[in-house]
Each structure stands twice: as structure tokens, then as C-alpha cells.
């Protein structure tokens, strides 16, 4: 099968998401589609999958023009998609998820689940995708969930399979395993489109690379010969510094001390299970780990958002374990939350309002019960300038800003106070390279000014680049502590997967 995208253009109100994109893919090859967040990769693939319709341009399969009105049409034409956010029903079994939409039935629409299970087992065996058809999705680790997504696509007899940022949620070992699966799919004659912004991965797995920038194909590359710097420059449009420039850390007195902390998650599992560590002034401690190993609960406990079951948290010697978020906040703690849109910002508030979300209740932004909007605006103008937030005005609702600029609003708000301890969760998730560089720079600057900083990230490269000390979390415990210069991503990856030292 041969798929061709010809002159695809997609206009959203005020935005040109795709601009005359041409793309070709044949059976039995892996096409890498490289681009930054916001470059238009996902939009392009949603057009291919029938979720959006293109403003202009054609999709051709074996030379014939296709008209996809819905994903159903695309599936019927042999296109399968593994979405960045898995499209699985958490309370359904593996088999139910696989057959949903094309269920094998007996008379009168009665489900034939035996057949469904048999089909799942058959595909599992054929492609080496081991999974229990009766397991419930929400009990499975993400790596296995991804396998279910792949089985789902294969069950629909897809010939061209699109993977949208498939490695974002995987451990380094799972990534290796995933590449093995992708190669075997290619060898079985499937055409693969692999979307990513990770330079190493695309060079490792792709047969050809197309680079998308600002909605346009800006170049092609041969993964065997192209260098990492060259590829990065093609993707961003300017030379990129791939390492974070920072001096040797100069740790001072302990600021955050955590002792034997146990925190329950929403289902009452001890997702933080007896964690102890210290963060000193003037150092960056990074917590690495696959998502869901207790990082979220740990950060929530440190910032007062979740009550710890037992253990002690001290800030500069003072016990704050049972303090409320505001009390902790007033003890000079800054928090850059994991999900900026849900817990970092009020999306329908303006930039100026979001910049005082943590301090509106006090001088100088309010007197008694009355807000001082003049001061609030003054503050916003100064911070927007200092932190380089690209916004048409401080009166714009933050939901209209790009992800990078939304994150800068949060960083500006949190860092503009006198801060002793900063906890930043996934500080650069989903951002473009420019914003990532900027935020990393700010964090290092904060450290050099004597701040104690805790970074939580599932991006191993980020943890390696920023941290002075790395802690690896696995199933609620800290399983390893390393300095970045005495380890590498492979070793950390093993710790993240639960391998322990003897």
C-alpha cells in the first residue's frame, strides 16, 4: 500500500496549522516525522485519521483520492493510529477495548467474547505482543496499555500505522522493546509513521526522516548520516544548545528534609512508601521515574495538597507536614505543578490575574477586601517583561497563550517572590525548545541565587541535564541516588524499571 498526502493545508481561526504539506509512505518502511511541540504534527495526523478535515489538499491511497469524514472511514481504508493519550476505556478489559467498534457478535447483537479473546491471543502470538485479554486496562502499566493500542490497530487490519509521540510515557527499557515491536511490524509489511520530537529516537528507528516546522515540511534527512545537532537545527530553525550550561553546585544548609514519608493515593495504595531525602540550599535535586511511581503524591504532600499518612517534612528545620498549602506557600515555597492547565492556572482568568493568584489576598494587591487592580497590572507588566511572556496584552485570558508562555506565567508568578525552596513537576512538558531553554536557565539561576530546588520529571534527559543529584523513584520508594556525572541514562533506566543493586 502506498499513502500520499498532497498539499495538505489546515487553517484554524487565526492559525495556519499545516501549510501545503506533502508526505509519502509505503508498506514496509518507517517514516520518522520530526517536529517541535506545536509544529503541526498532531494536526496533520488527525487529518489523515479523519478527525479533522483539511482546508485544502488530498489524501491518496494507491493513487486514489480518499474522502475521510470520520475515523471510521480512515480505519476502513487501512489506517490505524496509536494516540499520544491512549484511547482506551479504563474500566473495560483488554479484549473489550480491542474489539470496541468492530465487535464479533452472535445473533441479535449479542457479544461473542470468546471469539474476541481468541483474536486477541492470535494477534499477541503473531506479533509477540504478550497481554492477558481479560486484564482490566486501569490495572495495567502504560507499557502494556500501549501494546493493547497496537493490538487494537492490528485487529482492524491497518496497513499504515501512525504512532503519535509513543515513547513519552515509557521507560528507556520499554522504549527499546517498543522499537523492536515497530521493526517487526515493518518487517511484516506495515507502513509506520513515527511522530516524535526526540532526536535520538528518530535516528535510531526511522528509515527516513521528514522534519516539520511551523506547519511546513522544511527538510528530509537520512537517519544513518544526519547528526544530532544538524537535526535539531532543522527542527528549531536555529542552532540549539543541547546541554544546560551551569556551574558546579555549591550546596549549603539543608532546606527541605523529608523523613519516612508515607502518602496514600486515591485508591489508598501507599504510593509514597517510606521516602527520606534532603535538598540543600544551592542545589538541584532531580527525581527520575516512570509516571505513576509516586512522584505526583510526593509533590502533593510536600506542597500541602495531600495529607501524609505518616512521616515528617521539614522546611529549614520547621515541621510543615500538616500545614495547609497556603501556610507552606507563605514559608517561601514555590510550586510549579505537574499539570499547568489544571492546577497551575485559571484558564479563563487574564494573565494579570493569574500572576497574583498566590498573593492577591494581601498587600500590595489588596487592601482589606478590595483588590488594587492598578498594582496588579503594574506587577503583571513588570513580570511579563522580565520573564519574556509573549502575550498580546496582560488582559488576555491565559487559555489563549501557547503552552510555553502559559508555563512562563507560572514560573514568573512562583519565582518572583523571595523563594527558599522550589518544587517543579514536569517543568517543560509539551514545550518548544525555546521555552525549554528559557525555563532551564531560570531554574539554574534560582539555584545560583541560593535556592533549594526539587525537579520531578519523567524525561530522563532533562533530569540528567539539570540535576546536581538524582534520586530514582520506583513504586513509591527511592531506589537509587546518583550524581549525573557518575551514571548514564541506561543505568538510570534500569533503576526506573525496578532493577536493584545487589
Amino acid at each position, binding site marked *: 500500500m502506498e499513502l500520499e498526502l498532497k498539499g495538505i493545508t489546515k487553517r484554524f481561526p487565526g492559525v495556519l496549522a499545516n501549510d501545503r504539506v506533502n508526505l509519502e509512505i509505503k508498506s514496509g518502511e518507517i517514516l520518522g516525522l520530526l517536529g517541535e511541540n506545536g509544529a503541526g504534527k498532531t494536526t496533520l495526523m*488527525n487529518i489523515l*485519521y479523519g*478527525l*479533522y478535515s483539511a482546508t485544502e489538499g488530498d489524501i491518496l491511497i494507491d493513487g486514489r483520492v480518499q474522502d475521510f469524514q*470520520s*475515523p*471510521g*472511514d480512515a*480505519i476502513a481504508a487501512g489506517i490505524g*493510529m496509536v*494516540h499520544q493519550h491512549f*484511547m*482506551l*476505556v*479504563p*474500566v*473495560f478489559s483488554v479484549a*473489550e477495548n480491542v474489539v*470496541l*467498534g*468492530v*465487535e464479533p*457478535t452472535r445473533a*441479535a*447483537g*449479542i*457479544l461473542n467474547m470468546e471469539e474476541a479473546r481468541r483474536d486477541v491471543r492470535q494477534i499477541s502470538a503473531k506479533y509477540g505482543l504478550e497481554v492477558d485479554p481479560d486484564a482490566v486496562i486501569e490495572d495495567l502499566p502504560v507499557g502494556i496499555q500501549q501494546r493493547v493500542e497496537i493490538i487494537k490497530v492490528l485487529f482492524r487490519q491497518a496497513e499504515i500505522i501512525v504512532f503519535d509521540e509513543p515513547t513519552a510515557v515509557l521507560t528507556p527499557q520499554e522504549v527499546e522493546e517498543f522499537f523492536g515491536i515497530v521493526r517487526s511490524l515493518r518487517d511484516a509489511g506495515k507502513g509506520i509513521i513515527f511522530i516524535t520530537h526526540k532526536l535520538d529516537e528518530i535516528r535510531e528507528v526511522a528509515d527516513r526522516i521528514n522534519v516539520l516546522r511551523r506547519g511546513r515540511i522544511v527538510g528530509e534527512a537520512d537517519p544513518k548520516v544526519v547528526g544530532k545537532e544538524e537535526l535539531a537545527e532543522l527542527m528549531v530553525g536555529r542552532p540549539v544548545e543541547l546541554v544546560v550550561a551551569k556551574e558546579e553546585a555549591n550546596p549549603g544548609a539543608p532546606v527541605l528534609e523529608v523523613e519516612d514519608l*508515607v502518602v*496514600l493515593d486515591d*485508591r*489508598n*495504595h*501507599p504510593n509514597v*512508601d517510606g521516602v527520606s531525602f534532603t535538598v540543600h540550599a544551592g542545589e538541584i535535586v532531580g527525581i527520575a521515574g516512570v509516571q505513576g511511581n509516586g512522584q505526583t503524591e510526593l509533590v502533593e504532600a510536600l506542597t500541602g495538597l495531600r*495529607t501524609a*499518612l505518616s512521616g515528617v517534612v521539614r522546611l529549614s528545620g520547621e515541621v510543615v507536614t500538616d500545614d495547609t498549602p497556603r501556610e507552606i506557600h507563605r514559608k517561601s515555597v514555590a510550586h510549579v505543578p505537574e499539570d499547568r492547565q489544571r492546577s497551575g492556572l485559571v484558564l479563563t482568568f487574564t494573565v494579570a490575574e493569574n500572576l497574583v493568584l498566590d498573593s492577591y489576598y494581601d498587600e500590595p494587591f489588596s487592601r482589606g477586601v478590595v483588590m488594587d487592580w492598578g498594582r496588579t497590572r503594574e506587577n503583571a507588566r513588570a513580570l511579563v517583561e522580565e520573564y519574556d511572556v509573549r502575550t498580546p496584552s496582560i488582559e488576555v485570558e491565559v487559555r489563549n497563550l501557547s503552552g510555553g508562555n502559559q508555563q512562563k506565567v507560572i514560573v514568573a508568578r512562583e519565582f518572583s517572590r523571595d523563594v527558599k525552596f522550589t518544587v517543579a513537576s514536569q517543568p517543560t512538558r509539551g514545550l518548544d525548545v525555546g521555552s525549554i531553554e528559557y525555563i532551564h536557565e531560570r531554574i539554574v539561576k534560582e539555584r545560583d541565587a541560593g535556592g533549594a530546588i526539587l525537579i520531578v520529571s519523567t524525561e530522563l534527559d532533562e533530569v540528567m541535564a539539570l540535576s546536581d543529584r538524582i534520586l530514582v523513584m*520506583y*513504586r513509591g520508594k527511592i531506589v537509587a541516588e546518583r550524581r549525573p556525572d557518575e551514571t548514564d541514562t541506561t543505568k538510570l533506566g*534500569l533503576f526506573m*524499571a*525496578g*532493577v*536493584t*543493586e*545487589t
Partner: protein
Amino acid sequence: MTAATATAPRVLRSPAEIRRSRIIGIIYLMLAAFVLVVFAMGTEGDATFKLAATGDRFEIPDLVLSAAGLSYVAAAFLAFLGGIQLTRGFGKATNIILGLAMAVIAFTFLGWAAAGKSLSLVGMLQLTVVKSVPITFGALSGVMCERVAVINIGIEGMLLSGAFLGALIGSVAGPWMGILAGILVGGLLAFALAVLAIKYRVDQIIAGVVINIFALGITSYLTSSILVENSDTLNRVDIFRAWKVPLLGDIPFIGPIFFNHNFFVYGMYVLVAVIAFALFKTRWGLRSRAVGEHPKAADTLGINVFRFRYLNVILGGMIAGFGGAYFTVGSAGAFDENMSAGRGFIGLAAMIFGRWHPVGALGAALVFGFADSLQAKLAILQTPIPGEFLLMAPYIVTVIVVAGVVGRARPPAADGQPYVKE
């Protein structure tokens, strides 16, 4: 280096859970004290429970118990439960034990009320089934809608409209046409809800409340302007008579309670079974549940989210309309202003209590139905409790149940959220 062995994650008890567990334990002890002081002390005479209805094929002797003795035993049992709950807890069985305790208290209460008199237990449970009919239909309607993630607060209005048209059309064209009219008006109101909630993404609670207010207003107006003056021609419908199921109806005790009723009760059994089967064993059910849990996933697999929501909400409305017709065609024979009296809301509570499962909903509705029948039967026994308090019984039980005695039930993940296609 060694590979990690996979172990099942430990489950600890959160502070909130420990607190809840303690509170339940203390409640047991307080209930034990209450039973002791109010039911046991100073109560004399035997309570006679009739276990067979008149006309049953098999005779069963009456159950005669000493009211005070029963109360002492119950108080001791509750204190025992409280002790265990406070010391080691019941773990997973907490809710089952709680249900058992409630049943014991209810029975002790009946013993106290019937001390020195005679109470037909079989008649009371029969009435329980009857009273649970509109609640079950309301709950089933809720299950249909919420399984596809549309909250239907308008069930009350649909019941009431079904009752009204059941009476009006039933009087003119016969009871079957009355039922049909009830089903149609329920479907019509649900269609209005569906358009507001799905197409225009109006807040679903508000849309439902509007339907309730509309239904109450128009039925009350039409009652006073038309039905009252023509009550002989327009508001007198032939009701369905009870029909005893052969064999099943002759089972001692169980038979008269469950299998000697009219068409609506059997319709309720059938509908519960059909919806349970359809939701969990058919293609339609799998897709419906997917639409309620993760509409976007369903959409990416080519399932038409909107079509499923429209269809199931309208079907849900028709079920509520059918249930509403019971009030007039199946029970009273005439329409009365606001005769549904909150049964639609209690139905929603039964849906939650029954964890969005048709069979669970029926079980929950029976609990509410029991509370409802208490008031009818106890009024005859002349207990010292004022009638007004007995009238409150079903609502009080609803509040207790919904306030979290059952713990946290998990609704469909997308419940109440409109789906926006990008």
C-alpha cells in the same frame, strides 16, 4: 543487579477511611443503646407476624415473638457489631454488615410497633414491591441516561407527565393507550433534554430541573382546568388487576410477595433483566458504556457518540414515562396533582445506591419501597409515632443512603460532560 519481583501493591487505610470506620462503629453502639432504651424497655406483649396472605395455597403458621426479647437480642447483636467495627473492622464486608444491621433494626422496629398486635409481614413486603415500582423505573431511566454520560434530573417530570397522560388518554381510549401515551410523552421530554444537553450543551442539571418545573406546572394547570370538572370522563381509568403467576405464585411467603401483582410489576422484572443483559452482553451495551466512560475513545473507533446519547436518553425517557403511567393506570386509577411526589429523585438515589447497575437499582428501589410501605402499614397499627414522621421515612432513608453510608460509588467517567467534537 537483580530484577524486581512484581508484588501486589499494599492497600492501607486512609485517615478518612479510618474515621468513617470509627463513626460507623459508634453509630452501631448508639443504635444498640437506642434499641435498648426505646424498643426493649417497657415494651410488653408478643408481636405476631403473619407470613401468609389470605387465599394462599399453603398455610404457614404465624411467627410470634416477644417484642422485648427480640429487642434485647437485637441490641446485643448491634453492640457486638459495634465492638468488632471499632476494634478490627469488617474490611470489605463493611457495607454488607451495615445492610444486615439496618435489616435487624427494621425488623426490631416492626416487632416493637406490632407488640400485642398482629402485623402481616407478607402484606408489608408485598406492598414494598408495589411501592418500589415507580422508583425502579426512575432508576432504570437514570441508568440508561447516565451510562451514556447524560445526567437526567428530569426523571421526576417524566414520571409525572407519564402519570398524567396515562390517566387522560387511558380514560378516553383504554389503559393500554394510556400506557402508550405515557411512554411517548416520556420520550418526548427526554428528546428535549437530549437536544439541550447534547446539541446545545446546556448545563444538564438545569435542563433537567426545567423539565421538572414544566411538567409540574402544566399537569397541575391541566388538572385544575380540565380534569377536575370532567373527572368521570377524563380522569377515571380502568387499572390493571393483579395476576398470580402459576406455580411461582404458590411458593410459600415468596410467592405472594413477588408473584401476585399486576402487569407493571412483571414489566419491571422483565425490563431490569433485559437492560442488565443488553448493557453487559450486547454490542449496543458495550458501545453505550464506552460512550459514557471515554467518548473520545469511542469516537476514534468510529462510534457515533451523539447518536448513542440521543437514542439512550430517549429510551430512558420512555422508561420513565412508562413508570409514570403506573401511578394512574397501575395503581390509583386517577391523576392527582404532583402524585409522583419525588419518586423520580428517589429513583436517582436508587441508581447511585445500585451503582449504575439495573439489578442494583432494583435492590435499592426495594429498600426505598420498604420505607414507603412502613408508613402505609404502621398507620393502621397506631404506633406512638406521629404520621408525619412516617411520611418522611422514604426521604430520610434516601438522605442517609446518598449522604455516603454506601461509601464511594464510581459513576461513568464522563458523566455529565457534554462531548465536543474537535
